[in-house]
Each structure stands twice: as C-alpha cells, then as structure tokens.
C-alpha cells in the first residue's frame, strides 16, 4: 500500500511542481546574494545567515530550509496528509480501495508514512539544491556558529543534514493532524486548506509573545529548534520541546484519525 501511494504521488504534476518550488528557494537565495552581495555597512539590517553566504555555500541549504519551513512545508503537509483520505473520497476511489479490500487502519498508516516520506524527499531536494547552488557559486568552508566558535566543513555538513532531519520529524505532529482532518470531510481542497491554516495559525500563535502560555502546546512548537545545532555547545532544549510536542500530537491525532475513519460510513 505504501509503495502504491508513493507511486501515485510521483505521477502527479503537483508533486513535482511543489518539489521544484521548494528546491528553487535555496537556488534563488544564492542568485540573489550573488547578484547583490550584502554590504558590510548594512550588516546590522541583514539576517545573519544571508551575510555569511558570501563566504560559505553551506549556508544556502540551511537558509533554504529555514525559508521553506513556515509556508511551503505547511503546504506540502496539506497536500500529502490533508488530501490523503479526503481526496480519495472526493474522486470516489476511496470506496474502490476499501473494497479491494484494503483495511481502513492499514490505509491510514500507509497514507501517514507516505506523507512523511514525501515531505522528507522534498527537504532532501532543498538540501541538495542548496548544496549544489551554494557549492558552485561560493564553495564550502568551515562554518561559524551562532556562539562564535567554528565548525569544520564536514561537521557543518552533518549539522545541515541534521537540521533537515529534525525539521521532518518535527513535522510529524502536524502531519497527523492533517490526516485526521482528512478523515472528516469528502472535500480534498477543503482538507488541504484546513491543514495549511492549522499549521500556519499554530506557527503564528507560537510567535506571539502575549500568548506564551499556549506556546508549549501548539503542534508546531519548537519548529525552529534546529538552530540549536549551530550553537556551542549544542542547545538541545528547543529540539527536545519540539520532539515531545510532535510525538504527543502524532500519537493523539493518529488515534483520533483511526477512530473516526473506522466509525465512518463511506458514502462518497
């Protein structure tokens, strides 16, 4: 079932369009920085990552990940998880999958794993595109950390990849939420939009200082925790919080999704 899901996604234009859009982000950043390098006197205005790119291509994939995460990632999760069941219901193929027969729980688990895999593949695309564009234009070198120390090129590369892995795992909670939303409706676009809204609203809430009491409970809490990898010593607190939140959301919303999908009448 999982392989069928991946195969289906790879034959859709929208998957490739999304992949191209995501991989284009680090490339665009590289081009923009190359075309008008940040001036030293403007250093205070420029984001610290962007300023560093001129010296080191390794910043391109990292900046790409950071830029892609809030919106494009939410969109990808909407398309892969939000549309998972609702889209099949809308096209009518859900009933033919179930009478094949495919058990409902199995279908949900396969949808969840394929959504995570596809999101992961998109992030790999961002990292690869960033490494390629950044490497060609700026070359690689040791990377300064946010704490002022320096990482060797290889160590920095490992941490860039680690950032991607963390971003993916931290997205597991919202993926489960999207899958649950997907079992609530027979409208694919509705479920996609609802999932994207939840993901973005969660990030907005996480940013509003006045709502700090809510912060530890929103599904995207700790999404930016990967920046802790670029401190010395590594700051695990943000990532620990993010992983805890996403584990709780994954478990809770997978249970909800399975419960709701099993009790539902398939009338689509």
């Amino acid at each position, binding site marked *: *079932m999982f392989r069928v899901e991946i195969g289906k996604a790879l*034959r859709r234009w929208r998957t490739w369009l999304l992949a191209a859009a995501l991989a284009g982000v680090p490339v665009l950043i590289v081009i923009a920085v190359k075309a008008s390098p940040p001036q030293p006197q403007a250093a205070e205005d420029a984001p610290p990552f962007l300023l560093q790119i001129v010296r080191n291509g390794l910043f391109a994939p990292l900046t790409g990940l950071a830029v892609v995460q809030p919106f494009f990632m939410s969109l990808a999760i909407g398309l892969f998880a939000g549309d998972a069941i609702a889209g099949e219901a809308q096209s009518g193929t859900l009933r033919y999958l179930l009478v*094949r027969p*495919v058990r409902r729980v199995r279908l949900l688990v396969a949808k969840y794993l394929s959504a995570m895999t596809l999101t992961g593949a998109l992030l790999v695309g961002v990292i690869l595109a960033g490494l390629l564009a950044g490497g060609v234009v700026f070359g690689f070198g040791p990377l300064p950390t946010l704490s002022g120390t320096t990482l060797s090129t290889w160590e920095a590369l490992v941490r860039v990849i680690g950032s991607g892995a963390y971003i993916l795992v931290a997205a597991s909670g919202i993926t489960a939420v999207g899958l649950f939303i997907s079992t609530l409706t027979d409208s694919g676009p509705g479920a996609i939009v609802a999932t994207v809204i939840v993901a973005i609203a969660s990030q907005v809430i996480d940013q509003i200082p006045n709502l700090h009491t809510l912060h530890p409970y929103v599904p995207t809490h700790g999404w930016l925790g990967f920046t802790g990898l670029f401190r010395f010593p590594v700051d695990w607190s943000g990532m620990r919080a993010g992983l805890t939140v996403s584990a709780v959301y994954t478990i809770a919303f997978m249970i909800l999704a399975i419960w709701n999908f099993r009790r539902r009448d398939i009338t689509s």
Partner: protein
Amino acid sequence: MTFAIRTSGLTKRYDDVAAVDGLDLEVECGALYGFLGPNGAGKTTTIRMALGLIHATSGAVEVLGERVSTDRGPLERVGALVEEPAFYRYLSGRRNLEYFARAGGRGEGTRRRLARVDACLAQVGLIHAADKRVKAYSQGMRQRLGIGLALLGEPELLMLDEPTNGLDPTGMREMRQILRALADGGTTVFVSSHLLAEVEAMCDRVGVMAQGRIVAEGPPGTLRGAADRVRIEVDDVKAARAVVERTPDVSVVSASGDGSGVLQVMLAGVLTPGALNAALVAAGIQVNALVPERDTLEDVFLHLVEGIDVPR
C-alpha cells in the same frame, strides 16, 4: 446451504428514516440476480453494507458465507462496482488497474490480478485505450473500465450497482452478454438496476426493493404477470366496455372515445388477451388492435406496493 449474499434483518437508519428496513435477502450461488427498485429504494445502501463500506444499524449481512463488517471489508473473492466507477484520472487505464491490484498488498491475490490486467482490459474492449489517461475516457469507457476492475480478481461474486449506466445500446447488450457468460461460467452476479426491461432480459431471479424492503421476489416472468394491461382499439367503446364488465378476471382501467376508441383493461387470473378478443368479437364488436402493454417498473412497483402497508 451457503448463499452468495444473505442478509437478516439488515437495517440502516439515517436519523428517523430507514433507508434499509429489516431486509431479509437470500441470493443463491451461481445465480444472475437482478436487484430492482426505483431510485432511493435502498439498493445502493444495501450494496454498501454488503461491501463493508457503511455500518448497519442492526441486523447482519453475510457474503459467501462470511460475515461482513466495516473492519474487515469484503473478501478478496468479491468484485464490485459501486454507483459510478472512479479512477485516478491522471493515470492511464492500465496503471489504474495495476494500482488497485497492488493496493491489496503483495500476496497471491495481487500477483494473480497483475497477470490479468491486459486480459480484463481486452474483455471490456479497452485494450486499444489502455495507455490513455482516464481523464480522456468517455463515460462509457469509464463504465467498462469499472467492470474490468471488478473482474480483475476473478471474483466468485460480482456486485454491480447500475452497471449499464452511461452505456449506449450496443454497450448495454455487450454488458448483458458479458454478465450472462460470467453467470454461466459459475460466477454469482448480483446486479442492481432501475430498468425492468434490462433485468428481465438477463436475470434468473429478481428481487424488487421499495422503501427499504423486498416487496417481491422470484423469476422475472412472475413479476410482470402481476400487472398485465392490454390496450384495445375498437369501433364501439361503449359496447366493448359492457362486454368487459360482464367478463370475469378483467377490469377496465380507462376508456376514451365515443363510438370508435381505445379501451385499456387489466387482466388478472387465467384470462388471456386471446380469450378476451374472442368474447369481444362474439358480441359483434370490431377489434382493430389488441396490444399487450409492457409495464414500466413504475407500474409493477406501484402495483406491488399497493397491497403492502408501508409506513412512511
């Protein structure tokens, strides 16, 4: 005895309305069974329950001897078309069949299905369009691909909901031939339809459903017999009417015209149209035409539910 489909007290309620109301249905193995009823009679709801797509409010349904539930779904040995066919529009017809074959896992059933993809496409006449995207298929082609999908697993039981929808007359005849051949080969075929003529032309047995219940069941000929109307064109309607009213086992449905005109009568019991004709001629009435009127399902249906107290 094992039945292909057996329901006992099967009920589905939506709020206060019973879509299927204590249905007891038995479909024997090997039959070509026509499941007849007007739209909204509960046919699709029944089929969906038999396929484990929707929960029964109460009662049970067994398919090929095994209890069906929404947790288990139907058996691998069941092929189905539920309402209109549905496919991944961005994939070709062949890929759609391959994907649905693989969706069941990697077992024996999947291998067997994959090996049969081309044979099924050929059987429903789509081999020339196998590599076109379903997006570009006509409605009739999608319908045939739906039948091809249902046949993919060499099912022992086929459950088809309105399979001739969207087919032209040639396609309908081909469909009937395909289903007849499958039934003759030992497959149980359960076909729902709202077209009496279609069911009569191909089925061994018919169940008529109305308002969630079976209101008649038996070989197709017996249903028609229940409401046999004859249209008679005569030169003297008044005299003809008098003859009909004297004759037992026949009643006047309508009369039009004064002098020459048309009389519509309903035959019951053993009286044949020929005997009625003889009686009219004996009374000196000139009979210009005597046409048995084929009842529409609506007529049969209305006639069937007349005597039954169906709460609304």
